[in-house]
């Protein structure tokens, strides 16, 4: 009965559990769940509140996102975490704004998520940054002259990244060819052929992991020898599994480098091992994705904001959130006036196709 | 000889409307039996239920001693019944020849001879054997529907207005064919609006009125029946017929 009288605060988890970004959404959710399993209560105004997670599946679709968002609001959440995939976040942003509920983006890197929206924050870097980092990396480290860029049509995430990459790469004196593929496409051979025919030195494809798995397989069977570059989404064991034993070179940027916080790494792995469902949601093994670390941090940022506001009222949390500073496992987090994280560092990793693991390559900042 | 087909207390309804009410009749083997009645009397419905196309509400239908009332049409056909359906219902997307072939779907033997037989009955069909049957004229389709039913070599052939839309000359041929079929030992259950001809060639005839059986008799007897004459034979015909009979 003591439990019954206990006060609760609800945090909304706005993530895709199906569709193109289902895999990533699940990994991000794992981080949040792990954090919740570590810290179940938050002290507000001297009283302990139990934190309840309210999850909803936004189906990776911009037309399903608004109603999913609305559904969270109707359940009375105080703050929302998510979503993986920028498009759904943009589509839901105004719904959250209208409901007056603050939202904390975890890995949605497109600038439009927070631009012109008072209630959306995020703890990750932005596409202009990430795209530029990769462009610099390609020019400086890989010495690429010509880049082939592939994005998915109508996908804000890959579209944005390609856009900023192209800008930076061209500015750095490189040459670019870019194309977009349609939703539902599984045949990447023609794009690979095109890249080969154009004589590109790198193949830049910051697409969803679903497409990535196909792309990697086909790149290997079509004998694409140039490096494949991608953004944070590819930091996933889906890519590792797809590339294992294949003849491909893959480089990705990421928010979190496994090993940066051994305690966290060990904790989350042990936790995942405790339940086969977590392992399944993580893609079949306990490989740690940056998204999971980011989800973990986001949860604590939300708690910080509540503590700071001393309230569970969304309006109060919103005001407090802007001033939160938090030292997370992925680095220190603070927000600028846009609500974007102040971050200037990304890690570049490469896939070791023999052992099926990530190898650290470089830490990159913007010139 | 015994009864090939016996219908006992048949009642059929479409939705709420009872189209056939408590009808009992029998078709002796080797005879021509005809059903007469006005539009909407329920004649077609009787044939359809015997063929399994509509399920009776109550009543039994025995064919060679077996109750077939609950059987699906394709099994009834297998027992040896063929129906020439109302409105021809030829397969418009098949050629004339294919229609005839499909009529003999259940037969395993050689079809050539039967084909020749049908073509000799209806030379017009032979001429048009490669034509899609949907583009045949109404009468040609009627011939095809009849030919198709004959192809299955049934023991009982049920014909729903076989002379519909046929030219007078052919109508006479059709009745000759019906008699010929009977002589071959095939039993015939016939619905015909041309009541004069039907009654004059029928061994037994039944009269249906709004779903009920009201009369039974030999064809000749009903032809002379005053009420039948008045209801179905038309005045002009009656006069003509009585003149003829008089001579």
């Amino acid at each position, binding site marked *: 009965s003591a439990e019954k009288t206990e006060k609760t605060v609800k945090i909304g988890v706005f993530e895709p559990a199906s569709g193109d970004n289902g895999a990533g959404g699940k990994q991000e959710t794992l981080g949040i769940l792990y954090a919740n399993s570590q810290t179940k209560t938050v002290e507000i105004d001297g009283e302990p509140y139990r934190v309840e997670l309210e999850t909803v599946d936004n189906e990776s679709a911009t037309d399903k996102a608004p*109603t999913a968002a609305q*559904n969270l609001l109707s359940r009375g959440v105080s703050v929302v975490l998510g979503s993986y995939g920028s498009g759904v976040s943009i589509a839901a942003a105004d719904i959250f704004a209208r409901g007056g509920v603050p939202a904390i983006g975890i890995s949605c890197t497109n600038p439009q998520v927070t631009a012109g929206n008072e209630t959306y924050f995020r703890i990750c870097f932005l596409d202009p940054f990430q795209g530029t980092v990769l462009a610099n990396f390609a020019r400086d480290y890989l010495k690429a002259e010509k880049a082939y860029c592939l994005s998915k049509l109508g996908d804000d995430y890959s579209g944005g990244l390609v856009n900023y990459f192209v800008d930076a790469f061209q500015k750095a004196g490189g040459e670019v060819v870019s194309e977009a593929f349609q939703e539902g496409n599984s045949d990447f051979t023609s794009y690979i052929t095109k890249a080969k025919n154009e004589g590109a030195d790198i193949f830049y494809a910051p697409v969803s992991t679903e497409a990535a798995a196909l792309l990697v397989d086909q790149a290997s069977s079509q004998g694409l020898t140039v490096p494949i570059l991608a953004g944070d989404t590819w930091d996933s064991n889906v890519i590792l599994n797809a590339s294992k034993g294949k003849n491909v070179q893959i480089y990705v940027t990421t928010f979190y480098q496994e090993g940066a916080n051994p305690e966290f790494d060990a904790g989350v792995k042990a936790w995942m091992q405790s339940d086969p469902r977590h392992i399944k949601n993580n893609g079949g093994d306990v490989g740690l994705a940056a998204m999971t670390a980011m989800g973990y941090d986001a949860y604590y940022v939300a708690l910080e904001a509540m503590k700071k506001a001393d309230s569970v009222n969304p309006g109060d949390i919103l005001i407090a959130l802007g001033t939160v500073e938090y030292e997370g496992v992925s680095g220190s987090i603070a927000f600028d006036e846009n609500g974007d994280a102040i971050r200037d560092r990304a890690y570049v990793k490469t896939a070791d196709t023999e052992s099926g693991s990530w190898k650290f390559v470089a830490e990159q900042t913007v010139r | 000889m015994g009864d090939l087909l016996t219908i006992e207390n048949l009642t059929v309804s479409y939705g709420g409307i009872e189209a056939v009410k408590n009808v009992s009749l029998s078709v002796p083997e080797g005879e021509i039996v005809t059903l007469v009645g006005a539009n909407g009397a329920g004649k077609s419905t009787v044939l359809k239920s015997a063929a399994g196309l509509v399920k009776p509400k109550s009543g039994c239908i025995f064919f060679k001693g077996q109750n077939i009332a609950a059987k699906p049409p394709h099994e009834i056909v297998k027992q040896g019944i063929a129906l020439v359906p109302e409105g021809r219902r030829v397969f418009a997307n098949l050629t004339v020849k294919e229609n005839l072939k499909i009529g003999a779907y259940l037969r395993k033997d050689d079809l050539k001879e039967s084909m020749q037989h049908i073509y000799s009955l209806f030379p017009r069909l032979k001429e048009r054997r490669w034509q899609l049957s949907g583009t045949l004229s109404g009468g040609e389709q009627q011939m095809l529907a009849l030919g198709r039913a004959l192809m299955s070599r049934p023991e009982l052939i049920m014909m729903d207005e076989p002379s519909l839309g046929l030219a007078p000359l052919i109508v006479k041929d059709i009745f000759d064919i019906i008699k010929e079929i009977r002589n071959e030992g095939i039993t015939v259950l016939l619905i015909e609006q041309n009541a004069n001809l039907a009654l004059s060639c029928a061994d037994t005839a039944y009269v249906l009125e709004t779903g009920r059986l009201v009369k039974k008799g030999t064809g000749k007897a009903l032809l002379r029946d005053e009420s039948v004459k008045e209801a179905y034979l038309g005045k002009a015909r009656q006069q003509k017929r009585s003149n003829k009979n008089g001579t």
Partner: protein
Amino acid sequence: MSKKNNFILSGLLIAALLIGIYVLEQILPPTEMVFVVLQKGAIYALVAVSMNLLNGFTGLFSLGQAGFMLIGAYTYAIFTIPEVLKPSVYLYFGGGAIHFTLPVLAAIVLAGLAAAFFAYLIGLPVLRLKSDYLAIATLGFAEIIRAVFQWDALGPVTNGSNLLRKFQTYDSTLFPFVVSGACIAVIVLFIRSTYGRALCAIRDDETAAEAMGIHLARHKRLAFCISSFFAGISGALLAMFQMTVQASAFKAAMTYEILLIVVIGGIGSVTGSCLSAFLFVAANEWWLRFLDTEQYIGSFQIPLLRPGFRRVVFSVLVMLVVLFFQKGIMGRKEFSISRFAGRLKHISYKNKEVKP
């Protein structure tokens, strides 16, 4: 006389409905799911009725509805984004090419007109096709339109494949209700007019309809344009509801969803379409959501419940409805107050009078 009563009764019913919604809005917090269902239900009801006009009443099996909704949604969005916000919306296209905005109602009407215009163009070659060939051709046109709207070269207008947002929306649930209610009323009047009967005749038998003096091409095109006009309007409303639009959402799957609503409601029944639109949205977006979350009774985890289960249950429900209501919930009948009242009367007086 009874017709007049019927009219008054329907009017009262609608008024009561609107007042009900108004009261609801006053007493419930605006974040309640019931408002989502009411809004989206109203919008889907309109597009379902417009599709029914084609598929159910004219017998034109068209699968282009999502395409016309797309045109409507984009037209509305493009012309109502406030000038100051354009740079942030058309981020990659230098603030866009259109530099004026229209009032909301004008933009909605324009959305309908744009869809109708496209329908007119498409209708010329396509409406000659029969049944399934028409279906696939219209589906194809919807896909082509989607591709065109995603084309980078049109970016300054359509924002390429990126989202359009920040356009004007409504703030009361009454808005989509009134707009789509009015539109449905017009469709009903159309169906009940002599033109509506002509369309039904075309559905039943084209050759006979033509022999009765009905100009097939003109009537089909009329139905196609009217249907598209209202699909366009519902597209505009959908844009307002979602607050963002993106061409990639208007896929064939959306058309199938609408078709599902039409058939479940009853092909050829307007009230059926409306009813099933609300049921569909409510079941999909609201009632079944709980199936997606793992739930515990004490420490016992209820089996099966996890993300994705909602959609399994939903599809099973759809199948059950299709199998057990083969002609849809309403068949081809309409819900009418007078008949409803008549049935009550029937019970008490047992009068069996059939009126022409």
